[in-house]
């Protein structure tokens, strides 16, 4: 490993922390391999998106406010999630406007990055030296795509992965139907959207679906499993640490 030249704070998000620790570890490994000293503050939990998304502003404010304080003065923040990054970068403005957290929130917004964005746009990396044998297709998660302008970064990184054949996914920018509590509250609509996504995925005859958000992964993998479709689902960080 090269000598650390930068440092970053890793905020893995609550869903990765509790359900997909391997994504968090892959993210740390990727950053360290680029000479980034990674720290993980004890006690980080959640960006507050679930509550804000459901309309519970006070609860979201309380949780996000604490997160802002935990991340105060912690340098660059990197998340393996376009959605949680967009929560901070796009929605913290309005949530904390005119509150005691406003200044810390604005400072945090200015130094928060999604993983592929951090690798490609901040560190200038295109090839992480990965090897991953699969015929894969890529789903663009909505919030990263539309609030952070993510799309090119992941494709650049994946194009350099040895052994990976990347095939285009029809309607790759169409929502998978997750949408937080939408998946439960509007389960029928969410299910209909999911079925369209699954049909597009299976039409590619890819054996691997890659995406950048654990929430879309949960939705899509759950649907593929239910349909007994022989397609694996991986977070992009897991693919990029393939050796």
């Amino acid at each position, binding site marked *: 490993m090269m000598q650390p030249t930068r*440092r970053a704070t890793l905020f*893995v998000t*609550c869903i990765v*922390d*509790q*359900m997909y*620790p391997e994504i*968090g*570890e892959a993210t*740390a490994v990727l950053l*360290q391999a680029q000479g980034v*000293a*990674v*720290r*993980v*503050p*004890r*006690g*980080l*939990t959640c960006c507050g998106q679930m*509550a*804000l*998304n*459901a*309309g*519970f*502003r006070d*609860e979201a404010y*309380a*949780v996000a406010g*604490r997160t802002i304080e935990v991340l105060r003065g912690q340098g660059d923040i990197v998340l393996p999630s376009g959605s949680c990054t967009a929560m901070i970068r796009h*929605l913290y403005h*309005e949530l904390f406007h005119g509150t005691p957290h406003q200044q810390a929130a604005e400072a945090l917004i200015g130094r928060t990055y999604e993983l592929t964005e951090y690798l490609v746009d901040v560190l200038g990396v295109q090839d992480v030296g990965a090897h991953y044998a699969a015929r894969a297709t890529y789903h663009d998660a*909505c919030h990263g*795509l*539309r609030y952070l302008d993510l799309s090119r970064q992941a494709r650049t990184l994946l194009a350099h992965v040895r052994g990976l054949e990347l095939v285009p996914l029809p309607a790759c*920018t*169409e*929502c998978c139907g*997750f*949408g*937080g509590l*939408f998946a*439960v*509250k*509007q*389960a*029928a*609509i*969410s*299910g*209909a*959207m*999911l079925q*369209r996504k699954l049909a597009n995925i299976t039409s590619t005859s890819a054996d691997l679906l890659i995406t950048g958000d654990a929430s879309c992964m*949960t939705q899509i*993998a*759950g*649907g593929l499993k*239910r349909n007994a479709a022989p397609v694996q689902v991986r977070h992009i960080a897991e693919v990029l640490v393939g050796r």
Partner: protein
Amino acid sequence: MATQMLPFYDRVEDALQNSTLQHALERNMPRFVALRAQALNKLIDEAALRDQARAIRAKSLARLDELLTRLADTVEARGGHVCWATDGKAAGQYIAELAQRQAVKSIVKSKSMASEEIHLNAQLEAHSLEVIETDLGEYIIQLSGETPSHIIAPAIHMTRQEIGQLFQEKLGMEPTEDIPTMTRTARRVLRQRFVQADMGISGVNFGIAESGGMVLVTNEGNADLTTSVPRIHVAIMGIERVVESLDDLAVMLQVLARSATGQKLSVYTTFLSGPTRPGEPDGPEEFHLILLDNGRSRILGSAYAEALMCIRCGACLNACPVYQSIGGHAYGGVYSGPIGSVISPLLQPDVPDVHQLPYASTLCGACQEACPVRIALPDMLLRLRGDAVQAGKVAPGEQAAMTAWQATMNNPALYRAGGTMASIITRLVGGREGVLKQLPPPLAGWTQHRDFPTFAKQSFSERWAAQHGTDEEPQ
């Protein structure tokens, strides 16, 4: 019609189970999306044009009182009459009284969402006035007794077979699925109505403050007949639809048809300027402009003012994966899709389950991306959810769950303990396969449609702490 009386969730279920509707949506929606994209891609600088269009809409709203006054003054100077209608009832009353005063028996209408919004036909029919819709789509849904399921394509939920059946029943047409035969049939019936009508009612796409002109954008030419053949023309315009000048209008027209139907310009773009002047061969003897507020000035002064930038192109409906799944009627009001989910709760806050509409979105942002004036629809949907919660419109147990969620997320020890518990339970239930096939309420909706993964044996933060310790120094 009956569907719309049901609660929101039942309407959604109906829509998803309706195979004819699903077939119509599958066929039609991708076409709209593709045509719009093609039309916009042909522009030299799409982004700049949309920015300009947005700036023009922002200017119109910022100077709404001034521009509306100018518009009204110019219309009156040309011999037209202006009615400032605070709500739908006032607008309906004005038209009904005018019709009675002028001994109007028969009315033809061209397409107008503002008139749909205030249920004008029902209001006029209550005064024994006969109103005939002349836009083909509107005519179809008038015959079938429905409301529009799309802002610009009101009958998009129907297949040609259904329409053929309807024309057989209502118009005595011979059985056919041939579209030209159906349009010819409608045309023959409607021509007669145009000739008989004493009054024509139209909407307004844009009112031009500096010239007092009304602009109508159509593809069928029915608006030209509606506004020129009958002796009285009444135009209904939502107060937000004013532009200052012809230059502003030129920009708006460039984005409107492209966003709506993928056309560079609609087939007819009609400029109207009030009653016939001496020496002119045709046109109405009387012109009335109804400036409809109906809750708009309340929206203007709120956190939702941006919603008034909407030019009713329907692009957000076409782009919306929720609309693509359920169509327009499931929304329950005349405005559907993302813009409907924003403005319906604002225009009609008293409709019982209208507060549910802002939840009919994954906040994916496709609507804002498609909107020619980039209205921040997802942000407003989010704000409306916040308002609903603040007003106490939450499901039973939801508040308690969120309070517990907050307590857990803000207490790392509790968060860790909760994670451990979830891990033990889900792994126990998930067994060797590692998935949950059935979750209990309120999460049961998840497992109706997909499996749920088990929680990890050990969380990332615990693994990290075990390997790196819990000190705060960088590794």
